[in-house]
């Protein structure tokens, strides 16, 4: 393991410890979303810091409450990691849908629809907004 990897690992662990112990809803020294601060519009990533805290506490419902897209992002990340790992270590050749021509477009459409929906200030859609 080289110095760069170790640095990133150390940084990752310290950030994880920080978000495990501190709930971003309770304090106000965490950076806020620049888009939300300036315009009052939620971006697709709003609530990610609170979702990280919930995830580290193994509160899956809390994650979904803050940001559904965050949960989907984790699924994609996990999928990519598992397929890449299997292909690398077991010399398998499983097709990774990350490389499918349609995948990025579908993801982009999901992000944009999600972005619009979570900004509608009426009941069923307010579930999508972070709280």
């Amino acid at each position: 393991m080289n110095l760069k990897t170790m640095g990133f690992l150390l940084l990752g662990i310290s950030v994880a410890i920080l978000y495990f112990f501190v709930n971003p809803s309770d304090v106000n020294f965490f950076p806020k979303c620049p888009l939300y601060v300036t315009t009052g519009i939620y971006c697709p990533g709003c609530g990610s810091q609170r979702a990280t805290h919930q995830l580290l506490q193994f509160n899956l419902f809390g994650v979904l409450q803050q940001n559904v897209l965050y949960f989907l992002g984790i699924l994609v990340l996990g999928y990519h990691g598992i397929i890449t790992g299997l292909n690398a270590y077991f010399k398998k050749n499983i097709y990774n849908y990350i490389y499918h021509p349609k995948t990025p477009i579908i993801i982009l459409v999901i992000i944009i629809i999600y972005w619009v929906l979570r900004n509608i200030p009426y009941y069923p859609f307010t579930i999508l907004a972070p709280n």
Partner: protein
Amino acid sequence: MMDQNQPKNYLVESILVTIFCCLPFGIVGIVFASQVNSKFSSGDYHGAQEASENAKKWMKWGLFSGIAIILLYAIVIFAIGGLAIMGFGNDY
């Protein structure tokens, strides 16, 4: 499949950039990621390679601007550090 030969499309990285900080850069990254995939599947290897480099560039811009925003924020917070401490736990 020929995954090994396909240039890296940075789709996962772009999604992370979109969710964690910098929406515009992440979205541009995803658009280039889609170009990597579609161009590669239609046999345009050079185009795919180019799109891959673009995706990487935008993903990096997103990453750096995210770090810059956090650093700026930290500087501001430390500059008015007293306020941050007074605001500690104000939701209770």
